[in-house]
């Protein structure tokens, strides 16, 4: 039997900020446990939360970028449950009035545009991290209170590819808006995944199973394993149970955590210690106006305006800094396709070889513009440009300097080339006398000789033109 898959994601992303979302402790990663902490993070009796304004602005930025409705006031709720990683016994989050609701994000899935609907995005605090050992567990409160933005989609994705494309697009949005470093290896991006299967063509959704706390790089495996499990269950006429499961990295399988009956009632209520914080129209306007152009819009523009292929457009827009690099060169008047070729092949190739980012790259936009100028004016060949590109990087020099030092600049002056051509003809007068315009190979021979004599600097086009003229004269002599 075939099934329709439906997936919804709850994506948790740690925001960057100088201090934690409700305490003055530094929001910084540290290998040394329990160093970035305060009494507030530890939930000692009598502590009170003070909201970090920077985090509010970042949360509002994401809500705006996700085309969400934003509330008049920032209001927080308590989510009550007992767990050793939650020292207060409640998490301060947003349930009643999230910072963003009813939004969407357009993404490319392969070559198709898909709109992913956002139920809400809300600001909350991260929990402590636990290290489990045989007979005991250790608690590290460094992460406790780090600002966390949870973005919840509607159940609107229908394949693993769609889910992964959305996750990738959302990650890019966080990077573009500079709200997070999204360091996946540090667990800064984690997901809860809801997945249900229904008979193909069915109007109703199947029974929802939730997978909790999946690190973003495990999403694909977790989905594959869970969907496979559900198909097997359904094919064997076993009902899917509404439950929460966890994904085990080692076995690459999902396991039951708790059933629907065991579901926790979080007893949400409005946090009394944080008065409503007005999100002024000025602030909303400021946030909206300072939003950068996002990847989806860039990709679309690169295809429609610059004529790039989807693959190239995606490659460039993947990284905001690469896109900015690309666009700066294009807006200087260079051919977008030519620039795209340079960026997607040589630039990205070199970055990956050197394992550096574009901001650490010494071949700046200005250098690239200079190099392309040389090609456009015919002063150097494309092949030479490639050599100059690498030489500039190795020696940290401008193309102008490299061209000058290596004497690589092409000779384009007709009279200069004519001098060389005449010398070549004298040296090979026997052959020249027999010149026949019908025999292309003869011309090639002379072009080769001219290039050799000019040590490769003669512009091939000009040289060909002059050779044709002079050879005719020579033969008719």
């Amino acid at each position: 039997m075939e099934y329709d898959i439906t997936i919804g994601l709850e994506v948790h992303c740690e925001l960057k900020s100088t201090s934690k979302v409700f305490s003055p402790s530094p929001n910084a990663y540290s290998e040394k446990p329990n160093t970035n902490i305060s009494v507030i993070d530890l939930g000692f009796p009598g502590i009170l939360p003070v909201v970090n304004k920077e985090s509010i602005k970042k949360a509002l930025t994401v809500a705006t970028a996700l085309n969400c409705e934003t509330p008049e006031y920032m209001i927080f709720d308590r989510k009550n449950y007992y767990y050793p990683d939650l020292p207060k016994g409640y998490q301060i989050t947003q349930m009643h009035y999230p910072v963003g609701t009813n939004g969407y994000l357009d993404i490319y899935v392969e070559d198709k545009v898909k709109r992913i609907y956002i139920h809400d995005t809300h600001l909350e605090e991260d929990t402590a991290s636990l290290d489990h050992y045989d007979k005991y567990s250790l608690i590290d409160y460094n992460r406790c209170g780090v600002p966390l933005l949870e973005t919840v989609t509607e159940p609107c994705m229908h394949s693993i590819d769609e889910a992964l494309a959305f996750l990738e697009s959302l990650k890019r949005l966080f990077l573009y808006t500079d709200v997070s470093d999204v360091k996946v290896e540090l667990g800064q991006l984690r997901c809860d995944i809801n997945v249900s299967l229904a008979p193909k063509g069915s109007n109703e959704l199947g029974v929802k199973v939730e997978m909790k706390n999946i690190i973003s790089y495990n999403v694909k495996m977790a989905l594959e394993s869970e969907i496979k499990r559900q198909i097997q269950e359904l094919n064997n006429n076993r009902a899917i149970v509404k439950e929460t499961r966890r994904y085990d990295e080692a076995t690459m399988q999902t396991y039951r955590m708790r059933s629907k009956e065991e579901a926790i009632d979080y007893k949400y209520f409005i946090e009394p210690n944080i008065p409503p914080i007005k999100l002024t129209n000025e602030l909303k306007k400021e946030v909206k106006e300072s939003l950068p152009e996002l990847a989806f819009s860039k990709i679309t523009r690169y295809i429609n305006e610059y004529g790039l292929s989807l693959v190239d457009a995606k490659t460039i827009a993947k990284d905001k800094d690469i896109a900015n690099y690309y666009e700066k060169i294009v807006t200087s008047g260079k051919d977008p396709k030519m620039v795209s070729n340079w960026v997607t092949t040589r630039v990205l190739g070199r970055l990956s070889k050197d394992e550096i980012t574009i901001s650490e790259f010494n071949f700046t936009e200005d250098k690239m513009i200079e190099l392309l100028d040389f090609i456009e004016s015919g002063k150097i060949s494309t092949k030479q440009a490639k050599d100059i590109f690498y030489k500039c990087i190795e020696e940290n020099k401008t193309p102008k300097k490299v061209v000058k030092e290596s004497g690589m600049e092409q000779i384009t002056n007709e009279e200069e080339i004519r001098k060389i051509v005449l010398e070549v003809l004298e040296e090979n007068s026997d052959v020249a006398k027999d010149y026949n315009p019908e025999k292309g190979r003869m011309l090639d021979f002379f072009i080769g000789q001219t290039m050799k004599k000019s040590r490769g600097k003669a512009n091939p086009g000009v040289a060909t033109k002059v050779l044709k003229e002079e050879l005719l004269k020579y033969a008719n002599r």
Partner: protein
Amino acid sequence: MSYLDLSIEEMHEAIINGKITPEELVKESLQRAKEYQEKYNSFVTITEKEAIDEVTKIKKNDSYLYGIPCAIKDNLSTKGILTTSSSNILKDYVPCFDATVVSKLKESGSVSIGKTVLDELAMGGTGTTGHTGVVRNPWNKERLIGGSSAGSCAAVASGIVPFAIGSDTGDSIRKPAIYGGIVGFKPTYGRISRYGLFPFACSLDHVGCFARNVKDIAYVVDAIKGHDDKDMTSLENDNVKYSDLLDGNVKGKKVFYIKEIMDINNYEGETDKELEEVFKNFDTVLEKCRELGMEVCEESIDIRLLKAIFSTYMTISCAEATSNNSNLTGIQFGPRGEGKNIEEIMFDARTKGFSELIKRRFVLGSYVLQKENQEKLFLNAGRIRRLIVDKFNELFEKYDAFILPGSSSIAPKFQSENIDKLSNRYLLLENHMAIGNFGGMPSITIPSGKIDNMPIGICITGRAKDDLNVLNIAYALENVLGQKGQIAGKENK
């Protein structure tokens, strides 16, 4: 005569004029604390060593509190000093930070001589549920002092200290102040920072104080009020000194009392000699108000709203309390429980750490917050709270304050019969002070008389942020009620 029996103002002058030193005052205060401890049990910890150490180190300053001994309720965080909230679950907890109010007291040069007993975790109104035993009323050891700020009240009423810090969630400062014959004040919500106050119900919790006269209250509040960056609910500074501005001129002030509460017909079958005396005393108070030039009016309020105060209070406070106290699991601090897994360990710590009364409130709180009950119970309680506050704010457009008896009787005996919590006497006369907590309004109680040599008093509540007006009305009244400055067991000066 001892300087310790005087007002803060008089003690201050004695210190300034070199008649007594802060060391002498603090030592005498410590002496009394130790001497009375067995009788009244005001303290969880008498901090003798710390107080003597502190008094030699304080820097001379302009504050009226310089060199004045005080006591602090044991639910305020004190760095390096045991702070138990009178609960077994915190019986060994030594905080590593000071509450803002404690820091401010230190800055003023006041010296704390100890941490006072409360009803466990500030939940309760009897002063009988602390983990170190019951607090007794200095006017009569057979009677309770009320709570939850029981020890702070007893310490001031018995003359150990001239002032003490307490907290008030429903009437936890004002009710004991009535039974102890002293002044109890909770200012506007946010006037004094709550940072470091162990929360009971944070939307209702106030830090406040006890003293033996209103001017002393003003001196204390001047020292501890003010905006605090650590408390988002704290108010901006009002940049005035209440003690400078008290003048007792209340001519033309308009006050009201509530018809439904003061109608004796509403207590049919519930009256006794004490209640009649309370009513008689209140008539005298109103007469004094008029003599002072105040206009006194009767206002009617829907009795259903008034009778809903208690259940509204219980619903909201228990809900917040169960969440606020969820940090007490024995994981980060406190006695570690035993068990095979983390749930069992936390379960064990909480089972052993809380008394049955506390567990009962937590169960109530959880119940009203449950998904299926929240709308009907918790959220409706919030709506009733809003209706009540709106009604009073509407009245405050016409009036400066309302005034009511602080209790329906003198302090009850320990072994008295259980109060009928559905009686009008309980619902109307014993719970109206929570209105001030619902709306964050400044509210003060002052002694107004005695029945069988046991104090009774009145409560004056004003509009939010209008603390000075409330203090000034109380200041004018105490001067004509003849109970000012009294210490239990001592002749009035």
